[in-house]
């Protein structure tokens, strides 16, 4: 029963966006996956939720600026387990074009365990969907259930 619930649970990954000082390019691409019929992320059972407490898959954009670092870590801590963290765009992964800037604390995996990387500047909406599918796989592994 429990394993059945776990197996079913990955078919409803609720997404939560954290903007860690992003330029908004990646955020726009994230919005397109929900708002443009062509990409329709709801098909995978996803839903962009407003509260970190509802989230399963966390999509983080932006290079983690000094001002926003503590808030990002705090919000990330608020998300109930099990959670899968996806870094969207090159900024959270490596710092991207902002790397080694005076106000950049990133890359993000110095502070938060990242599970999936979706590089791109910004990544294609299809790329983000690919990342969400990959996150589902990792979520299943974390629950200890074979697909």
């Amino acid at each position, binding site marked *: 029963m429990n394993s059945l619930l776990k197996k079913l649970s990955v078919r409803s990954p609720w997404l939560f966006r954290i903007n860690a000082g992003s330029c908004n390019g990646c955020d726009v691409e994230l919005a397109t996956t929900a708002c443009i*019929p*062509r*990409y*329709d992320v709801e*098909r*995978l059972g996803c839903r962009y939720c407003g509260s970190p407490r509802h989230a399963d898959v966390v999509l983080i954009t932006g290079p983690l600026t000094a001002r926003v670092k503590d808030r990002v870590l705090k919000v990330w801590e608020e998300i109930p387990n099990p959670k899968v963290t996806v870094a969207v765009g*090159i900024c959270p*992964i*490596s*710092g*991207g*074009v902002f*790397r080694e800037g005076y106000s950049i604390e990133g890359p993000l*995996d110095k502070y938060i*365990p*990242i*599970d*999936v*990387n*979706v*590089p*791109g*500047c910004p*990544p*294609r909406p*299809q*790329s*983000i*969907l*690919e*990342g*969400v*599918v*990959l996150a589902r796989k*990792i979520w299943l592994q974390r629950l200890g259930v074979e697909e």
Partner: protein
Amino acid sequence: MAGFLKVLFHNVLDGPSTDPFPLGETFTPQRFRGKVVVDPDICMGCGICRHVCAAGAISISPRPDQSGYDFTVWHNSCCLCAQCRHYCPVGAITLTNDWHNAHPQEEKYNWVERKFVPYVPCADCGTPMRPLPLSIARRIYLNNPDINVERIITLCPKCRQVEDARTHSSCAWPAAAKPGKTAGEGAPAKADATAGDAAPKE
């Protein structure tokens, strides 16, 4: 008021316009800027791509044994601006339309384009160097039909100067003398330097 009802009605009639991806195939534009690839046969190692790269994603590191250099592009830093492609003088670096970029964290540091570009010894003196691609050389020497392009691309820059001096009569190179390493250019350079130094003193 009825306008939006009409739109909704047509939406239902037309059916979904959703792309089947990730459950099926999707389209990729021909000129989509995706992952960077480099052709190690053409690359000359001039480094202009590294210079113009906005994100600092390109690294060119010569090997200590002088066998060549490693050309690395970090896909996790590349911002897909295609400046490298624009500025590459020989067209060795290009962007494919491959956008399948999502990867798990374990592969983060392997998510690179890494090519080994070997040096070729100069035909005359044996100095390790990168040869110019033949097609590029033909274009460069298009207006100089007297230059033997096939030969000149196998020479290092210094030997090329020597070769030029030997084959063109404007420079009187003694036909008997062997091409030396410094004899040709060392003497005039020294003369220039002394002249330059001397001038302000007077």
